[in-house]
């Protein structure tokens, strides 16, 4: 299949965006939000100190941006983008429709979260200096409401990526996609990308070392391993797939050995342009290696280093994200480039 930028950008960006949203939402849902801090205000009352998940509101903003940009990219692939709104109507049968619907729905709790955190940060109560950015003191902070919203965002993100994955996994004519590793891989890679994103963006909060980040670093290493493993499994399995031959496509195999003689038209047509994309085996091999190293190995190593010497972690966090993103783009390019559509069997390809 032809790797089109719009779709690659869409799946990668929204993927990591949703990954980050998922983690953030989870943080909001189950993470400790507020704690009775030691300081006491002028009235002498003790203050409750609250903080955003991973101490990073910025992370939420960046993640949201990724999701939004990703979804916008997907419009680039449409012949009639102005009609995109129609796409949510067929959720009963169409994974694409479901994806659209859930993606839109997920924006609601996400938006509310953004607003709430935003407002809370603007208005710390009775003028007590907010000791740290992304932390504030508020006795009246509604925890349960937040946990609920966080949960919804986490769920929505998970569901959206699940739908995206199924758009591809449900297409029988493309064996490399109609394959059991595709859905889990999409979920894992999304989560992994989200981790990288969060880890980098949390550094924006300027806050000092925090245990949440430990989670992210360890998570990075673990997920990198998991993702690497599942991609290897995936590649092994598609390499084992037999491609459909002309004899099978035409039903003439019963007669003998079938070879394409003349194509309907001598020049390339829509079908071949869109689905006849051919990638040389040896190039694929090389690119797979690049993907593995850039997307998973490098960030994992960097994470380990960060654990060892927190001093350099800020730089490292961004390096890891950069390498990871690049790797994921290569991985996604391959996901398309290596997929062969059944229709090519009718042609000399």
């Amino acid at each position, binding site marked *: 299949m032809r790797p089109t930028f719009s779709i690659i950008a869409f799946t990668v960006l929204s993927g990591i965006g949703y990954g980050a949203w998922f983690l953030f939402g989870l943080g909001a849902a189950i993470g400790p939000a507020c704690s009775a801090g030691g300081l006491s205000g002028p009235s002498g009352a003790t203050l409750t100190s609250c903080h955003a998940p991973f101490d990073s509101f910025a992370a939420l903003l960046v993640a949201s941006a990724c999701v939004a940009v990703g979804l916008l990219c997907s419009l680039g692939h449409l012949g009639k983008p102005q009609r995109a709104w129609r796409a949510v109507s067929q959720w009963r049968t169409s994974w694409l429709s479901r994806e659209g619907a859930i993606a839109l729905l997920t924006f609601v709790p996400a938006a509310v979260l953004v607003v709430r955190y935003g407002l809370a940060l603007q208005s710390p109560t009775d003028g007590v200096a907010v000791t740290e950015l992304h932390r504030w003191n508020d006795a009246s902070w509604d925890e349960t409401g937040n946990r609920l919203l966080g949960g919804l965002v986490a769920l929505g993100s998970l569901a959206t990526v699940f739908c995206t994955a199924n758009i591809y996994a449900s297409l029988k004519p493309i064996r490399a996609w109609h394959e059991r590793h595709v859905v889990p891989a999409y979920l894992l890679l999304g989560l992994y990308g989200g981790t990288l994103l969060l880890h980098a963006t949390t550094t924006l909060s300027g806050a000092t070392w925090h245990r949440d980040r430990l989670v992210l670093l360890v998570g990075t290493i673990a997920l990198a391993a998991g993702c690497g493993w599942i991609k290897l499994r995936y590649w092994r399995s598609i390499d084992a797939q037999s491609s459909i031959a002309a004899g099978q496509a035409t039903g003439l195999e019963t007669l003998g050995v079938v*070879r394409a*003689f003349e194509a*309907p*038209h*001598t*020049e390339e047509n829509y079908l071949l342009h869109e689905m006849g994309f051919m990638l040389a085996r040896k190039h694929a091999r090389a690119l797979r290696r690049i993907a593995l190293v850039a997307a998973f190995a490098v960030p994992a190593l960097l994470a380990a280093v960060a654990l060892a010497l927190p001093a350099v972690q800020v730089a490292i966090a961004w390096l890891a994200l950069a390498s990871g993103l690049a790797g994921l783009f290569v991985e996604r390019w391959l996901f398309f480039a290596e997929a062969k559509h059944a229709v090519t069997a009718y042609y000399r390809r």
Partner: protein
Amino acid sequence: MPHAHLNLHAPTGDVVKTTTCYMCACRCGIRVHLDDGRVRYIDGNPQHPVNRGVICAKGSAGIMQHYSPARLSKPLLRVGERGARAFREIEWDEALALATQWLGDIRARNPDELAFFTGRDQSQALTGWWAQQFGTINYAAHGGFCSVNMAAAGMYTLGGSFWEFGEPDWELTRYLMLWGVAEDHDSNPIKLGLGKLKARGAKIVAVNPVRTGYGAIADEWVPINPGTDGLLAGALIHALLHADRVDLDYLVRYTNAHHLVIRAPEAPDDGMIARDADGHALCAARGDDAVRIVRADAIGIAPLVVGEVRLADGRVAVPAFQLFAERFMADDYAPEAVATTCGVDAQTIRRLARELADVAFEQAIHLPQRWTDAWGREHAEMIGRPVAMHAMRGISAHANGFHTCRSLHLLQMILGAIDTPGSFRYQPPYPKTAPPPNRPGRARKADGALDAGPLGYVHAPDDLVVDARGEPRRIDKAFSWQHPFAAHGMLQNVIANACAGDPYRIDTLFLFMANMGWNSAMNTGATRAMLCERDPASGEYRIPHVIYADAYDSETVAFADLVLPDTTYLERYDCISLLDRPISDADGASDAIRQPVVQPDRDVRPFQDVLLDLGARLRLPGLVDEQGAPKYPRGYAQYMVEHERAPGIGLLAGWRGAGGANDGVGTPNPDQLARYVEHGCHWHRAVPAAGRYYKMANRDYLEWAKSLAFVGSTQPVVLQFYAETLQRFRLAARGHGAMQPPERERARVERYFDPLPFHYPSLSPLAGEGAEGGWGEVSSQDAPHANPLPQAGEPKARYPLAAITQRPMFMYHAWGSQNRWLRQIATRNYLYLNPRTAAEHGVADGDWIWLVGERGRLRVQARTHAGTAPGTVWSWNAIGKRKGAWRLAADAPENVDGFLLNHLIDESLRDRDGRARCANADPVTGQAAWFDLRVRIERDAEPRRHGHRIELAGAAG
């Protein structure tokens, strides 16, 4: 619910008009659906006898031809160099005045200085007549480079032919042999027929080096080596004779197989048929006592087909059949002897012979249909030999095509399979006497018109169009000793001869609908150069004037001094006349018209109107009345109705006579065209049931045919099993008679004018027959251009492969590539070769390779195809185009990747020093030998680099 705007009852258009398709020469009936003035949809006319509602790819794409950006829109006058495509648009008056001046001067000086040649033209009934009125002998249509071998062999043997004048019995045949047919003119009828055969489960055998198209659906593919069909047919005849599976009764009834042939070696009538005092052919018949010599056309006799007899004058004679049997029963036609040459193994040949005999005799058809034979005898049934053959250019486009085609006809005859139920059938107005009586015009009458049409059938040396020295009088050398039976002329030689001034110079080359600047030319590069060649002395072009009538911006337009833009086929009246190339089928006679269904939006005029206008301006006899006023001011539509060839006979056979009540013969009917339009623009008259078969000797048919003026008398047509006509020329070559060939032609004539068919290898020196044809020393023509020419007669080994072309079903010669839909199917062509051949040459599928022939080499892209005989390479014809033509992008694949084989096909056969000795054509008919081309394959250093290249020996490019 979905699809708010779906309307299931939208009308196709607002008006429907019928007319005749002209996306090819099949000429099907079409319905043109118009939507406020624009062509919306074209489909087949279900009422039409030719296509019965079906329509081919070309026909459906006609809409895009009609709206092609390559349509010419105004008369053009050359302002730059020839070939440079520099023109000035001029008004029609200026264009016609100029043409009138050029042609007027010629006519005053010497009408033969006008060479008027037409290509895909279907109005030869007009153009030929016009040339006759002008008085030039130098007229011909495209047949000479097309399939005159089929036409001539057929007309001289059967009085009909495979080519357009006959068809297999699609309803009843059980066994069809297709010899060298890819598409043919009867595109749709053949496809409809094949569909019927398939549905009926009849066996189809394709004898063809390539298995595509019709061959693809055949039961059996016989991958013959090109040029060897005569041998294969001979071997089949051999097997049938040895097995005595021959319909002798049919032979003695309908052919001249029993006629006695004089055996008197030195005599002036050796090999002629023995005749009585009144010229009636004689035969030996079994009397109750002894063998008696009686009139061969007598009935109730028991003729002998073998055995020597003594004639009254004491000389010896034998039945023609015996000569035939002696030749074909000999070992050189034994299946084992021909197997390797043909590339068909002996068992297969024997099996095919067995199958033919089995179907013809064991599965004979007895049609319960009473009929009366030409001698008045009643028959209760019609006996059918359900073996049908059809052959086309695979046979004819070789220099041995005439005799090969005769072999096929004789094979049909011994199976009793000509115009019987289930066999090959004549299409009215055929059969005519073999050969037909009309001879080529040679002398000019007082009014300057020719005494007869320029084309015709030569019966004896006296009919040749040669001068006192026996040298050619026609510019193309048709009807000369080099090609005596060139019944359609030799368009392929006009340019080379005119350029070389051999036999003489002409003033104006007037071309109509012939792309001689590209795919219709042999040795295309050289031909293009000749059109631009100047006389060093005068600085004048060797061909001073070129007038060309085309509808589109073809390659040839570039070489014209004056371009007369024609309309598209949807914008004019046309006439598909029985006097021309009929569209009849075996069960009925048909003719048709084209009517304008849309008005031209450009300053173009129907060529037929222009020709009549020109004729009137030239005051040609028949084109102006006594006062000198134009006779047909309303153009072709008027001519079609009012012109009479003979009293009561005009271009159209339908609705003649005052009230339109007459068929075939009748006074002109002013409402005739209206009648045609009412009847879907065609006329069809069914053959009476009792006349449907044995037409050559069926009184019911002959009387019907006579009533329509197809035949002059109801005398039977005797099939020329033994072609006495050829013997007349052979005798002349032996020094008998007043008209004798020039010294250097004698050997050729003696060899090729054999009254019985025989096989000989291609004339091309490259086919290892350098001496073939035995030319004398004197060159009849200088080499058109000097170059490092090949050594003639080089061993076949140097060029081991035969190279041929095939018609793509979706393209018509040059026309298709300007069509946005058709060109998408093939914007480029490949060289197809057998995977084994490719492997031997280290060529991979898709490699670019060099195709090397005597004239030069072409860089082409190779594709492997298992359905191609290992000794053959081929490509689709006329896909390659010349940059600048057809309004295609300069770097369109047709220009930069597609190719023509024509560059490698020589128009002449040359001697050692490259001097042209005679045309690369059949020595009997002058048929261009397109398929005699031999080549070899060379690899390219960068086989994956795209790009076609033409590298010719010598200057021409």
